[in-house]
């Protein structure tokens, strides 16, 4: 029986190429050192992002991090206000998480009253306390004038420059080398760290490298998202802290500014405000969003955020706004500026914010305004935190187990089935390749139970081949020619292979449906492993046998 295998060969080749292609970023990632990663991230952010996005993602149990579930008590609220309360709570938490600078935090609502927060790389128990335990603080602070800000920035730049020249401040100490894309280890090695004489390498306006003034909006600076952490570290330097007037504070915007976004780079505004608030959120009664009518002089057809103060709040806001017409007032939640509108006239109990472009932005502002007085209390109902050391231990232990397990199974297959065992080992190798490629290609997360699932797959994946081989041996014993025995072996083993694996697959799918976090990782690798082991056994090893037995004079099969 001659089979036309061209399609199958093509399929296998395409799958292998696709798998290697899908795993390439993971390979790059795992072979780079931490320094190389940081350098690439600064020198070629797009290339780095590409690698980071496409490499296999590690679960919190492997890279360390916190998985928190918070529940808010909504019993006291009327049912129609609960949804909104949860949204507000989410906004408050989002804002706080944003300030940690965690990469890709997961924040999502669960059911009617829960919020799941996943923070990779964070393991400080204080964080959990900080996130959920603190009450939201909403304040209204006047912006400092543009002159004060310009003057301050000038002085900071001068202090930094002088400090760098005299060697009192080191380039490495303030992270200047890193942020400018230099390799800190090389810099240190070359002794450049303290080389004050190397004045060409000292920018005249260190802060001005990445923090820009907006000519259209005096009193506001802005910086690219990636540089925020560095600017914060500069502002926290004692020499810089001394320069900031006691009645002033820096506050970042809560969201990146859509209007400043250019070419995929996102920028965020930095405000200098009065330290003392003019009024706090506790006077606020309600905020909502409407669309300005056609006759509205300021906001025809545009979203408007309306807010209402209580009587005392109305009196305070009237007094404050009267005295500050044409200045800007920042509305700050937990240290981040949600919006900083110009005061265009004296306000009363009912005020509104116009000049907002998007409905989504308006809704967010209204949520922030409302969150000043969170009516419900929240508490932590689940906290699973894995420290980085345990995560690293788990990765190491998992990898070692996988390698030993793989090696032993490979050995056993050759010991029992000789040449055919090698073919099964090839299938096993492809199996692992496919499982990892699917994880990387579809953006699934690899967890420790996921690694266990792969290891279990190593043991079970050979099952399909064992079934086939035992069958071939039987046929050979019955006196068939190698060619006929292989054909019969595959034909007779197929139904058992399919039935056995489909039932295991059912279990794995159910586990995926009902499981949480890490367990889903297990169910996932197991499912993919089962599917690919059936594929490799029925298609790949068959192709190899066909190729080997294609000569007419084959007398013997090594099995």
């Amino acid at each position, binding site marked *: 029986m001659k089979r036309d295998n061209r399609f199958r060969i093509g399929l296998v080749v395409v799958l292998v190429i696709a798998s290697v292609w899908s795993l390439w970023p993971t390979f790059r990632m795992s072979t780079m050192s931490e320094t190389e990663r940081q350098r690439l991230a600064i020198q070629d952010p797009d290339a780095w992002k590409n690698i980071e996005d496409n490499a296999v993602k590690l679960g919190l149990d492997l890279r360390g991090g916190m998985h928190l579930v918070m529940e808010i008590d909504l019993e006291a609220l009327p049912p129609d206000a609960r949804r909104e309360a949860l949204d507000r709570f989410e906004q408050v938490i989002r804002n706080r998480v944003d300030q940690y600078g965690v990469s890709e935090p997961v924040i999502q609502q669960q059911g009617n009253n829960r919020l799941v927060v996943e923070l990779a790389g964070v393991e400080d128990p204080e964080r959990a306390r900080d996130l959920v*335990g603190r009450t939201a603080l909403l304040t209204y602070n006047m912006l400092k004038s543009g002159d004060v800000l310009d003057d301050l920035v000038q002085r900071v730049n001068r202090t930094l420059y002088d400090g760098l020249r005299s060697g009192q401040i080191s380039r490495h100490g303030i992270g200047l080398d890193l942020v400018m894309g230099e390799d800190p280890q090389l810099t240190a090695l070359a002794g450049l760290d303290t080389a004050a004489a190397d004045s060409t390498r000292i920018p005249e306006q260190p802060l001005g490298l990445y923090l820009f003034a907006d000519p259209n909006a005096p009193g506001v600076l802005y910086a690219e998202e990636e540089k925020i952490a560095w600017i914060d570290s500069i502002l926290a330097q004692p020499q810089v802290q001394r320069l900031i007037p006691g009645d002033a504070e820096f506050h970042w915007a809560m969201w990146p500014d859509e209007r400043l976004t250019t070419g995929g780079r996102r920028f965020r505004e930095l405000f200098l405000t009065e330290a003392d608030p003019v009024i706090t959120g506790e006077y606020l009664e309600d905020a909502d969003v409407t669309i300005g009518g056609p006759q509205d002089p300021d906001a025809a057809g545009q979203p408007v955020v309306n807010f209402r103060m209580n009587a005392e709040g109305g009196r305070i806001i009237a007094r404050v706004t009267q005295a500050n017409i044409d200045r800007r007032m920042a509305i700050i939640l937990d240290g981040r500026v949600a919006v900083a509108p110009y005061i265009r006239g004296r306000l009363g109990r009912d005020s509104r914010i116009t000049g907002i472009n998007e409905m989504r932005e308006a809704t967010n502002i209204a949520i922030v305004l409302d969150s000043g007085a969170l009516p419900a209390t929240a508490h932590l109902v689940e906290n699973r935190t894995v420290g980085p050391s*345990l995560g690293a*231990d788990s990765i190491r232990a998992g990898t070692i187990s996988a390698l030993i397990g793989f090696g032993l199974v490979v050995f*056993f297959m050759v010991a029992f089935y000789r040449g055919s065992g090698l073919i099964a080992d090839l299938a096993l190798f492809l199996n692992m390749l496919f499982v990892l490629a699917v994880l990387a290609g579809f953006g699934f997360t690899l967890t420790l139970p996921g690694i266990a699932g792969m290891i279990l797959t190593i043991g079970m994946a050979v099952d399909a081949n064992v079934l086939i081989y035992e069958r071939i041996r039987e046929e050979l014993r019955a006196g068939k020619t190698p060619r006929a025995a292989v054909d019969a072996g595959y034909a007779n083993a197929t139904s058992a292979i399919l*039935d056995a694996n489909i*039932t295991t697959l059912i279990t794995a799918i*159910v586990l995926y449906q*009902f499981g949480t976090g890490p367990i889903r990782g297990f169910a996932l690798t197991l499912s993919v492993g089962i599917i690919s082991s059936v594929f490799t056994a029925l298609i790949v090893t068959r192709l190899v046998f066909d190729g080997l037995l294609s000569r007419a004079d084959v007398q013997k099969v090594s099995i």
Partner: protein
Amino acid sequence: MQLFVNANFDFLKSRRFAYLFSGAMILVGLVSLALHGGPNYSIDFEGGLMMRLAFEQPVAVGELRSVVAQATAKSPEVTRDVDEEGNYIIRIERLEQAEGETAATQIQQVLSTAFPGNPATIRSVEDVGPKVGGELRTKMIWAILWALVGMLIYISWRFEFRFAVASVIPLFHDVLITLGIFSLMNIEISIQIVAALLTIVGYSLNDTIVVLDRIREDLKRYRQENFDWIINRALNETLSRTVMTSLTTFIVVVVLWLAGGSVIHDFAFALMVGVIVGTYSSLFVAAPIIVEWQHWKPLNRAKKSRK
């Protein structure tokens, strides 16, 4: 190398002994479960606090226990972790969270004063509220039920109904025995263990189905032969494969148990037990059920008398 060439063991002859053995195992497990007041649920299902700690210098388990007990006014369970010297696992009831403070911080403070000069790092914290635990338990029960229903439907469709029964009874057998062993060894039932149990179910079924598939085939091939003889032949024909697959799976699971680290130690152990019990049950429980069914079914009397 070949394991069994033309194997011809009489599996069915020893089935009475197997019933006795299985029954005894299940009974011991059930007695242990009864004495312990049900399965020993982990904090995943009960709610509670579990911490993995690493001390720089090893400390006495008893001392650690009494320190934590004294500070929290609860009765903690302290065990040595499997991976390294100086690593411990503390399990305790959930602490009332005093004004925004998390339980882990509380315990860490206590430890730093009780063991000065021997700092402890927290390797992991799992703090689960009782409500969340209860919900998870319900979810897991549904998962197990759905898995069983799904498999029953599939097998009934692919095989006959009696085959479905013959493949599902061993599953209960396997899970009961594993639960019993866990109860005897006082290992907690966590989400991971439930996942392992479901995997055992899948594995055991996988094994059983290969045997059933062969029985189905042989029933067609040897129409003239005695029913028991056919079943026994099918078992022998698949014996090499059964042993070989169990062996490779068992090897990797043992490796995982020995080298996989603290987090999946119990998980790997459950799989180890499962592979053994699952293999045993396909040979000595599943096939005999079909034989008994055949013997007891009055309609089949006529066929049987043909021998």
